[in-house]
């Protein structure tokens, strides 16, 4: 009897719940920012504003810690449990799109005409994801360092050449005021390696994979240009310019502001910390090793899952989230580069004359997305290992050859990854 009452009550409660949301079609969304209060608060605000602004859709948000996010999506996809709206790391998007985890994003292209190129995720000629922000990397140093070493300040129009960059490192090393002249950030294993270091390779004239066909890395990752890059990369460590793979993560995070490194290769997310410590912090453009100065582009972006029955609703939410106000909120909250110039004007740091405005210009001028292919996920791992091995003294040509063989074998095993 008791049991019967309970069942009846549960049924009634369910009917009530369904009744309440009857007018709005429910949509689910997954986000990678659990654990970051500021980020979560902004996301919650967008969802609440959207749900209140119209009566067709009702979005519920579920957040995951970034470290477990990709695994969760893959597991959910295998179990057939994907939400309607996904956020996805830019270079991973083609992998998920190819696997059918995502579907094209039905968004009016006029909406994103002004967006930074790195925020738009295209695969197979179609838009799959769009970012509210981008990230950029700069050569961080201090005006006082440049003055002490008597170095020219490089500009976007006239960045340092490879030789000028090495001369700067030589000067810093000879001055002896720092533990190391240059901190590339070897302690940050994982996606940092391809994101931060493959632009050096591209500036030398090589690449992770041949972007014309995406079918092979042969000649691109082990050609003469890549060999030159590898020799240069190895010299950074063998000749004592930079701390190697066993760098302490704490030294990476605080080494520059503790004055242990003269130059640091670091992202906009770390910029505020440096600025708060040194008033004369400078964010210099990447050096040009012969094929133009390059930095990586594309950060986290929003898209529609492959199994969603309501891509129009998901697109409506994403279009709503693309307002300048929210772009600026994210930027002010967690230091990201807003995707549009108009949003940048609304922020503290990226507005004209703002302390980090240079990153917006860097993104516009130098950014190159990582290879747009489903195979990137594997290629990034192979590239990371090759760079770590070269830094640790492995033979450059043999290591790059091995990386090429592994990438080519993987592409073959995947029947060309659908290109």
């Amino acid at each position, binding site marked *: 009897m008791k049991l019967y009452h309970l069942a009846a009550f549960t049924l009634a409660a369910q009917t009530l719940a369904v009744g309440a949301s009857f007018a709005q079609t429910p949509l689910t969304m997954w986000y990678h920012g659990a654990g970051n209060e500021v980020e979560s608060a902004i996301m919650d605000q967008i969802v609440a504003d959207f749900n209140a602004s119209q009566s067709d859709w009702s979005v519920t948000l579920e957040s995951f810690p970034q470290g477990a996010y990709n695994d969760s999506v893959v597991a959910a996809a295998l179990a057939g449990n994907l939400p309607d709206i996904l956020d996805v790391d830019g270079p991973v998007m083609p992998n998920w799109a190819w696997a059918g985890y995502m579907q094209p994003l039905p968004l009016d292209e006029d909406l994103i005409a002004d967006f930074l190129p790195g925020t738009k995720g295209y695969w197979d000629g179609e838009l799959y994801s769009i970012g509210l922000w981008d990230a950029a990397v700069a050569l961080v140093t201090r005006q006082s360092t440049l003055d002490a070493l008597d170095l020219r300040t490089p500009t976007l129009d006239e960045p340092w050449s490879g030789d000028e960059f090495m001369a700067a490192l030589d000067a810093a090393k000879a001055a002896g005021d720092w533990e190391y002249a240059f901190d590339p950030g070897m302690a940050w294993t994982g996606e940092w390696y391809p994101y931060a270091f493959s632009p050096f390779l591209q500036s030398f004239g090589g690449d992770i994979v041949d972007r014309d066909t995406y079918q092979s890395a042969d000649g691109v990752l082990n050609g003469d240009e890549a060999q030159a890059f590898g020799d240069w990369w190895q010299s950074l460590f063998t000749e004592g310019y930079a701390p190697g793979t066993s760098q302490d993560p704490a030294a990476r995070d605080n080494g520059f502001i503790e004055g242990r490194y003269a130059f640091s290769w670091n992202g906009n997310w770390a910029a505020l910390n440096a600025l708060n410590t040194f008033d004369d912090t400078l964010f210099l453009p990447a050096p040009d090793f012969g094929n133009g100065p390059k930095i990586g582009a594309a950060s986290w972006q929003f898209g529609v899952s492959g199994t969603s029955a309501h891509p129009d609703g998901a697109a409506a939410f994403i279009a709503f989230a693309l307002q300048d106000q929210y772009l600026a909120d994210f930027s002010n909250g967690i230091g990201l580069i807003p995707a549009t110039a108009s949003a940048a004007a609304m922020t503290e740091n990226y507005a004209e004359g703002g302390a980090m405005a240079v990153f917006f210009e860097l993104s516009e001028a130098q950014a190159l997305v990582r290879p747009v292919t489903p195979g990137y996920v594997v290629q990034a791992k192979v590239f990371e*290992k090759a760079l770590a091995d070269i830094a640790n003294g492995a033979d450059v*040509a043999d290591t790059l050859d091995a990386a090429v063989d592994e990438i080519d*074998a993987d592409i073959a095993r995947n029947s060309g990854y659908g290109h």
Partner: protein
Amino acid sequence: MSSKLTTSNGAGWAFALPGIALIATFIIIPFFFAFALSLTNQRLISPNPTAFVGLQNYSDMLSVSVLQLAPETDEAGAIQRDADGSPVYPRVRDITRSDDFPQYRGMREWFRVHLGDTAHVVIARDVVFMKALVNTITFVLVVAPLQGGLALVLALLVNQKLRGITVFRAIYFMPVVVSIVVVSLLWRFIYSPDGGLLNNLLSALSFGAFEPVNWLGNPDTALPAIMGMSIWQAVGFHMVIWLSGLQTISPTLYEAAEIEGASKWQTFRYVTWPGLRHTAVLVLIVITMQAFALFAQIDVMTRGGPLDSTQTLVFQAVERGYGKQDISGGATISVVLFLMVLSISLVQRWLTRERT
């Protein structure tokens, strides 16, 4: 035996059922899955249909060849030598990447042996796997006897009837209770080249004569460093097993030995050790299996580096299966590892059998 298992033993089976069901679901069935997957090209994420590829994964992983390289000679036929006087050899990549030798395509030098002036270069299709295999076996060969022996010494020490001996038992057992991930993180700080505890300690003990070593960053010290912390972490667990074995030995045997005038060593050799036979078999097999499964320390401390000096089979299986989305490759490593552990356990059982 069989009658005991089957006749009116419903309660026994009922008690065993949850355990059997869990083991079947999470260990036995997945193993058969792994074996089946290792014969296909299954990917973690892929719209392509899975295809049966036979033993391709195994041959890709295990194939090895030997190249014999003669030194480069100049026009007069004399052997070219570099500044150190060693002969100069042609580069292996000129052979493995040449269209003249398609059979070596994709292979890479593993190691080389010099016999006279000829260099015998062993090339493998999957050098990382080969290095992981050698590292894993080295790890087992060093850790199993050291950890088992040290645990026995500790067990003998804490088996004495002294005041406060349980405090020592608790201290030795403590690292076992702490998560291996936490222990690995702590030891990363201990091994740190930037003022790590170990370097500071050695430097203080030697009055500054000790040169700081980058323990985890040097290919020669990385694996021994991980061996050291692994032995330290798990030794307490095996100490407890030895201890339980020690306490099953009847005190009357020791009294008899004392009356007979046996020395300490004779007592250990003829009373204690024979009484520990079954415990020894258990400890040896458990340590061997745990050592083959080396993963967490690698994942937290070195991720296989530097220069593959700490690659292990389980780390590679996970790295390939999830990191590189190659489930069939990860499954192949798992099957090879299973066969190795199985055969070694059988050999150990046979070597430590009761001789009648």
